[in-house]
């Protein structure tokens, strides 16, 4: 078997494996004030951060579950979830120092291999904490910071604290409040002025424990004229009970800077993935979200760009695949606060069997913002008669001379297409895979080549299993 096909097979197993772990730190089940105090104490946090967490807990407890959540959250059993589990506090800087079980997990997911091949830096989170973190020495010398959230706030407080919780405040929604109370792990990145990283930084998020909640928090600050691409991948094994992933991502993109944030979400089918992602783009800055959601029981994710400076640009490229029993509720928010800003949303979704794929988006232009442009296109492909596709667009344009366009198409794979491909020698599932990849081709090209190839193969294999 070739090295590549081995990697693809591992990728295609959806990460459905786990190791028995001996955790040094365990906050127990359920969420109380003591849970939050335990996490903060274990991490050795300052008073201000504990207060931030406790305030967030109060907001979480007071906030109702939003009535528009499309799936019953009862299986989550908030009082049974484990909110913090860690083997170590400090991530290892050398791969050989990572504990064996964790090393085996990330080995199977191809982490060290990818680092060697095409990454400038890697972090690998195992349950609540980063188990491994490494950044090329040359980038450290240039002032790039790539650490986990705890290190970021303790060792680089002056850089990160002014922006921490400002883009996505704890009170933004119930799940951002939950994250604020119990967050652990995630990447804190600072790219200095004028620094352009020609290779991406990557984080892997891995849930290993059963009935666990992962609450990483990522903050990326890209200073003036700097550029960075950040990749994140998520996997988990399939357990009997449900798991929760409620992350918060904040991007601060200074004038003329660019950030590209790429996510490949392949959680197992009992993970509830409720994520808040938002970036602020200053003058002539650019934020691109590239998002692929294949896994999870329910994903609710609407990456947002706040276009706060003139000539800022926001872009969203979104792929969602909803299998039977999955609900992918994804979309984008483009908030035009400054004049001459532009945004572009391309979303493609696929519903298989009784899977539900929904696009939920907001385009808003403030009254003071003139000459804003937005183009949104959502294409949905339904594979089976029982497949479901929904679109919930909101357009709210207050300013003058702005152009906002929303286009949507819904199509089906026809029997005639399948018959044609079978006559060419393809089995029914291969035919379906080819048509689905054809539908996604245009957007798959937006992913880095290594990811694009794996995604195509993964989608083909998913179709072949149907």
């Amino acid at each position, binding site marked *: 078997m070739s090295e590549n096909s081995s990697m693809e097979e591992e990728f295609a197993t959806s990460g459905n494996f786990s190791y028995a772990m001996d955790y040094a730190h365990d906050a127990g089940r359920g969420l109380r004030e003591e849970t939050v105090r335990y996490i903060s104490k274990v991490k050795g946090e300052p008073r201000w951060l504990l207060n931030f967490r406790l305030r967030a807990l109060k907001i979480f407890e007071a906030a109702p579950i939003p009535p528009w959540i499309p799936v019953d959250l009862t299986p989550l059993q908030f009082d049974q979830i484990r909110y913090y589990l860690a083997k170590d506090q400090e991530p290892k800087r050398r791969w050989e120092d990572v504990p064996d079980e964790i090393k085996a997990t990330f080995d199977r997911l191809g982490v060290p291999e990818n680092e060697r091949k095409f990454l400038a830096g890697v972090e690998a989170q195992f349950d609540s904490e980063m188990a491994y973190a490494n950044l090329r020495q040359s980038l450290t010398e240039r002032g790039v910071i790539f650490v986990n959230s705890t290190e970021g706030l303790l060792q680089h407080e002056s850089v990160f604290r002014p922006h921490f919780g400002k883009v996505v405040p704890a009170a933004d929604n119930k799940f951002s409040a939950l994250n604020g109370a119990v967050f652990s792990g995630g990447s804190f990145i600072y790219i200095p002025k004028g620094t352009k990283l020609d290779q991406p930084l990557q984080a892997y998020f891995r849930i290993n424990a059963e009935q666990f909640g992962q609450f990483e928090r990522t903050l990326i600050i890209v200073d003036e004229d700097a550029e960075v691409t950040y990749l994140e991948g998520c996997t988990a094994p399939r357990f009997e009970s449900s798991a929760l992933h409620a992350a918060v991502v904040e991007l601060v993109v200074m004038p003329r800077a660019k950030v590209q944030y790429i996510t490949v979400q392949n959680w197992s089918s009992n993970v509830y993935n409720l994520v808040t992602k938002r970036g602020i783009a200053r003058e002539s800055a650019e934020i691109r979200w590239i998002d692929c959601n294949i896994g999870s029981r329910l994903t609710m994710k609407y990456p947002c760009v706040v276009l706060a400076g003139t000539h800022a640009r926001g872009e969203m490229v979104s792929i969602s695949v909803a299998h039977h029993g999955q609900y992918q509720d994804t979309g984008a928010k483009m908030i035009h606060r400054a004049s001459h800003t532009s945004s572009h949303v391309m979303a493609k979704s696929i519903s298989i069997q009784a899977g539900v794929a929904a696009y939920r988006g907001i385009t808003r232009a403030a009254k003071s913002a003139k000459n804003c442009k937005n183009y949104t296109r959502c294409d949905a492909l339904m594979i089976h008669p029982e497949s479901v596709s929904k679109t919930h667009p909101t357009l709210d344009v207050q300013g003058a001379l702005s152009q906002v366009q929303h286009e949507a198409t819904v199509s089906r794979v*026809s029997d*005639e*297409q399948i*018959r*044609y*491909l*079978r*006559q*060419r*020698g*393809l*089995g*029914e599932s*291969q035919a379906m895979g*080819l*048509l689905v*990849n*054809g*539908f*996604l*081709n*245009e957007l798959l090209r937006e992913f880095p080549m290594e990811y694009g190839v794996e995604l195509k193969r993964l989608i083909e294999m998913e179709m072949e299993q149907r």
Partner: protein
Amino acid sequence: MRSALAIRNLYLNVAGKAVLHGLSLAVPAGEIHVLMGRNGSGKSSFVHALVGQIPVAAGEVSLDGVSLLGLPPEIIAQKGLFLAFQTPVALPGVTITQLLRSALQARQEKGKLFDHMQFHDDLEAAMEFMGMDASWASRHVNDGFSGGERKRCEMLQALILKPKYVLLDEIDSGLDVDATRIMVNAIRLLHRRGTGMLIVTHHSRWLEVLAPNGVHLLSDGVIHRSGGMELARAIEAEGFQAAQ
């Protein structure tokens, strides 16, 4: 014995209506045979039944002595029957290259590596033969194609997939003079390679240059009459009634 596509005593019902009533026909390997008949006589249904897209009521279809009846359409295709559709469907997003690569990979023995270089060389040569420039390789199959382009695309696929038999369902309809010439050249190339062909058509003139081995008239659900080019000429000159 040379390989052959053999149809014996075939019965076919479409939408509750009996279309074929015991049709028998043999197309020996490497020969060109022509099937003619009135509109609605069941020619298209017949070729679709041969490739497993319409279930047959009774009878036998075999290739090289092996029955094809009941096999899934993709297996029949892999065994060597190719149908050039009269109106091929569009596949948005799927390029000609992707389709052909997938079709070849589906035929490949397990564990054998796909020769990408050879594939691209073959595709380039076949496209050139069919008068297609390099941009065709990345065009989406039949998406926005004219009628003539769709038919050229069908023949391109036959040239690359190298089946034992090609069934051409009115591949000549609606073609201009130049497109017809390209199509005739493609059929000749397939013939030189030893590919057997069954051509469904209404027109005899373009058949003159192909010199088919047999011409068959389908009427009342059976092969009513068989002959050579003289039968095709008679049908064109005098109509089906007179030819019977």
